[in-house]
């Protein structure tokens, strides 16, 4: 398997980590073609994957796909729930998401898109809350996330290291997030961000900057949110 980052393997914490895998979120050309996304993801790693249904209309087709295809090679399967094109009421969306139980290990949601938290309690520990980037109006800091977890006591935490860096490049926030929510940690999103805060492949500079925070997450899957070198 080719190394998953641009950093030389000897100096790369990501290249030595297991389990890792990719998010299908960057596979724009394969939208709606779940088999093709799985095939691409498998070329990087068969230990972990995050299946992205970022747009609400992708949720039901993904659910159907997973129901039809119960056996996938990945040991850890996360589903990224919708963050855009939201039309369903919260309770309706939660009802759909609850049908993923038994089909995946985690459902990631962006806290800024969850208008009413109470229905989400039904998802229990399947629900994973991701910290947001500097573009968002909330959900990026410990202070902003604490009330979310207070209302969703069983929910776990997805640590997006690049999002934390976008708010505080000193990486103090990253440490604070890990201090506050370490016990809830489910998995990690790994990438760099461009000027518009879109996910791009992890740069060697960022990998060095992120290493202390990533070192605190050695026991959970790391999901690459942008194409690793093997996928160009």
């Amino acid at each position: 398997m080719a190394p998953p980052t641009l950093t030389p393997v000897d100096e790369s914490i990501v290249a030595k980590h297991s389990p890792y895998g990719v998010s299908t979120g960057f596979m724009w050309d394969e939208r709606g073609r779940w088999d093709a996304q799985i095939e691409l993801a498998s070329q990087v790693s068969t230990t972990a994957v995050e299946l992205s249904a970022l747009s609400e209309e992708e949720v039901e087709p993904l659910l159907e796909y997973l129901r039809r295809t119960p056996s996938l090679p990945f040991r850890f399967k996360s589903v990224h729930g919708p963050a855009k094109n939201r039309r369903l009421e919260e309770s309706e969306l939660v009802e759909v998401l609850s049908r993923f139980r038994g089909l995946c290990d985690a459902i990631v949601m962006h806290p800024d898109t969850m208008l009413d938290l109470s229905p989400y309690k039904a998802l229990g520990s399947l629900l994973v809350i991701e910290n947001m980037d500097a573009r968002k109006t909330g959900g990026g800091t410990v202070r902003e996330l604490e009330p979310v977890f207070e209302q969703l006591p069983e929910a776990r935490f997805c640590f997006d290291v690049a999002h934390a860096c976008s708010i505080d490049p000193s990486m103090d926030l990253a440490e604070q997030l890990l201090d506050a929510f370490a016990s809830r940690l489910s998995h990690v999103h790994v990438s760099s961000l461009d000027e518009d805060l879109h996910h791009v492949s992890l740069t060697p500079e960022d990998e060095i900057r992120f290493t202390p925070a990533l070192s605190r997450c050695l026991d959970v899957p790391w999901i690459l949110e942008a194409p690793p070198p093997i996928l160009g």
Partner: protein
Amino acid sequence: MESPLEALERRSGIRFPNLLRARDLSENKLTARRQALETLDLVRESSVVYVGSIGRAEAIEGSDDDFMLLVENSSDLPNEPSGLALVNQTLGTLDDFEAPGSQGVFAAPVVRAHLIENIGLEADDNSNTTRRMLFLLESTWASNQLYYEETLDGILERYIDQSVKDFRPPRFILNDMIRYWRTMCVDFAGKEYQGPEKWGVRNAKLRTSRKILFAGGLLPVLACAGIRKEEMIPYLKGEFVTPPTDRIASAFLDQEETIDAGARTLAAYDKFLGLLSTAEARNELETLDRNSADKSDLFQQIKKLGISIESGLLALLFQPGDSADLSRNYLVF
């Protein structure tokens, strides 16, 4: 004095309330049993040794009294049935005494020489291996501490033999521990073949407490790679008289970067122990088989906790650097 488990709790900010409560309960149970057995006139060369949840300081309400009566040699045995009856009778007067399992491994006289000398080959049957491994991995004394410690010394001296080299994990004991873990896994499958009874409890324990027990032995033995041969027996003895969760906590505390992973590992185990403390959960596990487990929220929760425990231990064992090198070089072949 702060235990490694308490130190991990303090340094990570992640709590282990169920494990620490279980320690207190284990200590109380042991104190009562030591006081009760003090009054007995047992032969000098014998010791009542606790294994199981009391032995590893993880007792919950209703924990079995898994003990063995260690005796010097088989010539003592003709008298031992009466000695054993005396021990059973005395322990049976305690309000919280729970008779051990019916497999014959516990509440039985055990000849010390068999534990020490019969390692490997025909005489080292399943019961002997189990008793020896539990003695090493999760035991404590309830009477005659000196005899108990001499036995521990004897077993370690047998393992740390002429084959052992400075700064190398001792392979004899390492292989026996790996063999014991794999035996538990194989026996699980064997028991499933015989019938679905207790599948849920056995599977849940294999995913959690058995894995913790194995890791609690593996980690100190691998750590012998950092010391000379003459230091190994005192080091291993010092480790094995502490609870397995302390040995694991201590290994995670050794490096700053594994503290969070260690806390999550033991928090998952803490949660499992919390679940197991309720009669409701224990009863549900008793009824589960492979098919019904898929539909049980409790079992799915335990499965996730097992994955967290395993992931944390793997992160520790395969952390880039010396740990990964040791694990690669010693745990496969």
